[in-house]
């Protein structure tokens, strides 16, 4: 029993320990290797880091609840791109010409609605056909990306609204707008997963679907809600990011699903469902962004980031398995 508690503590603390290690490593290595004058742990640098974590971070938080539920969503990158296009394009629609700056909330709502609908389509297919979520979202990843390209061809969609840019670049209490959205989503999802019936049922379904069904939990609607949530979050992430940049390429958001899954797995959430935590995913997101920034800081190229993150992901999987074997005395098959 005591052993089990210790294992759980190690697992929960691991990602934060890793973040501390990264901070220490890059600070020390940076003082020898970096060409930049400022220290790595500079306040502005850290604030920027949080802001840059937001796009993938918001999606990764949504991916956490999908994976706790025992599913996976590969279509988030395409949803992200489509929502971004809807947001930027709708600002120029003649229907909204008379609205002035009130077009901003309208186009945000349209973008978020796009995300919810795309998520609902995924959820409905998974629910009603019984096809595995991996296959369903693999298909819709292609399909949604096709819609992105059909919308505006290979041209970028651009629309800069300076009111919106000011909003996206604003800092409140030192934190950027994007960071506030990341934190708000984290708190919101933490509440949903830990304090509501839906959250409890989502854990139960991911842990043992048959038992959940026998306990009278309706599996389908819960999966559907989670898919709508992640669609909403992918769209929110796009809305926040493209409010500032104002231009979206049809290829944007590619491989986001892989980054999001990497962050979630680094945070210790199981692919098989039933366990995982929102807070740890936040840790995973920050750890990845630290690694990107840190490697850049000590002068390593972007190519090393891919290499290092890939190997870390595999190492985490290996360590996690070792911990589990010791905890359970698993049958060797």
């Amino acid at each position, binding site marked *: 029993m005591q052993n089990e508690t210790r294992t759980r503590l190690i697992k929960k603390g691991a990602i934060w320990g890793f973040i501390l290690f990264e901070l220490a490593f890059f600070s020390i290595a940076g003082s020898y290797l970096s060409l930049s004058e400022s220290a790595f742990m500079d306040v502005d640098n850290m604030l920027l880091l949080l802001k840059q974590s937001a796009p993938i971070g918001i999606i990764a938080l949504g991916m956490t609840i999908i994976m706790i539920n025992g599913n996976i969503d590969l279509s988030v990158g395409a949803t992200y791109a489509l929502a971004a296009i809807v947001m930027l394009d709708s600002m120029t629609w003649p229907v909204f010409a008379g609205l002035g700056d009130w077009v901003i909330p309208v186009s945000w709502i349209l973008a978020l609605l796009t995300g919810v609908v795309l998520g609902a389509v995924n959820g409905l297919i998974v629910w009603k056909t019984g096809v595995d979520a991996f296959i369903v979202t693999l298909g*819709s990843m292609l399909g949604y990306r096709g819609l992105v390209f059909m919308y505006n061809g290979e041209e970028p969609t651009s629309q800069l609204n300076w009111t919106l840019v000011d909003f996206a670049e604003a800092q409140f209490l030192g934190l950027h707008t994007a960071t506030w959205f990341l934190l708000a989503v984290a708190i919101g999802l933490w509440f949903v997963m830990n304090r509501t019936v839906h959250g409890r049922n989502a854990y139960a379904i991911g842990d043992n679907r048959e038992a959940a069904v026998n306990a009278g939990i309706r599996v389908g609607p819960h999966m559907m809600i989670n898919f709508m949530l992640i669609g909403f979050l992918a769209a929110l992430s796009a809305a926040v990011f493209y409010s500032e940049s104002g231009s979206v390429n049809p290829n944007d958001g590619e491989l986001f699903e892989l980054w999001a899954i990497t962050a979630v797995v680094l945070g210790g959430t199981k692919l098989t469902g039933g366990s995982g935590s929102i807070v740890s995913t936040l840790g995973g997101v920050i750890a990845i962004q630290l690694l990107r920034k840190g490697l850049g800081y000590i002068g390593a190229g972007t190519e090393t980031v891919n290499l290092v993150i*890939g190997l870390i*992901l595999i190492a985490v999987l290996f360590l996690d*398995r070792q911990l589990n074997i010791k905890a359970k005395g698993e049958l060797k098959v």
Partner: protein
Amino acid sequence: MAGGFTKSDIGGLLAKQGILIAFVIFMIGFTVANERFLAPENIMGVVRSSAILGVMALGVTFVVISGNLDLSVGSMMSFSTIVVLDLHDKIGPELAIPAMFAMTLCLGAFIGFLVGYLKLNSLIVTLGMLSAIHGLTLTYSGGKNMDIANKGETWFAVFGQGSFLGIPVPILIFGLLAALLGMVLGKTPFGRKVYAVGGNGVAATFSGIPRARVVFTCYLLSSLCVATAGLIQASRSMGSQNTVGQGLELEVLAAVILGGASLLGGSGTIFKTIIGVLILGFIQNGLLLVGLQFYAQYVVTWVIIILAVWLDIAAKRGRLLSPIA
């Protein structure tokens, strides 16, 4: 194993041959819509451009039947393309090709070791390797495009651009490899072990089948196919970007699933995978010929993948909608 008979014979037929029926319907539909569709040069063109995807799908079929996934084939293909192009100018094609095969097989062996012997989750391992191999490729090339200096003076182009007895070499390679791997999967003890490991890993272990070694070999075969695909790609274009294979892993997987292999392992054949590859190729071509814009094929592919898998499992469980409450 595949199939499983249901109440009605029609359901059983649909479950076993549904993909073949869909393929025939598609071909007829496109032929009616545009008479050029069935012209020999068009068919040859489609098969030829599907060859690279097809060669990779052959290897992934083994991996999927053994109950695992391989998401790293796309970035691995970029790696082998870049390596062989780079080495071509440095040590000549005779040495560059075996060197590239050796390096790619090492990557496959590493993944096979992690998934087979260390029993790590194949989705995460190959996801990590997707990223890691991409980093490796960029480190190797320094982020630059690779080009062969004297394109006219080398016989290297034969793999991608040559033809033998009127058949383009990529199709020949695809056909030969498919025949070979089809034999291995369907007619040898090793092939039966692959099905056993994917069908029920625990039972296979208790029957004395070395699960780890079988999975390891599947990944080795997959990387062999990837290296072959990289060779064709390099030889066809004689120059390449670092991201040439990006996203191919999911298209390959789509083809394999379309062919009816279950992601849970234990079912699928080389023949069905070839049908899956050809369906993807002909849909793309057919939609272009009937005048739809290029990207519409993505949406159509989406619908087809979902329908194919849905009808497959619907026939197996004997009802259309899932029993999920």
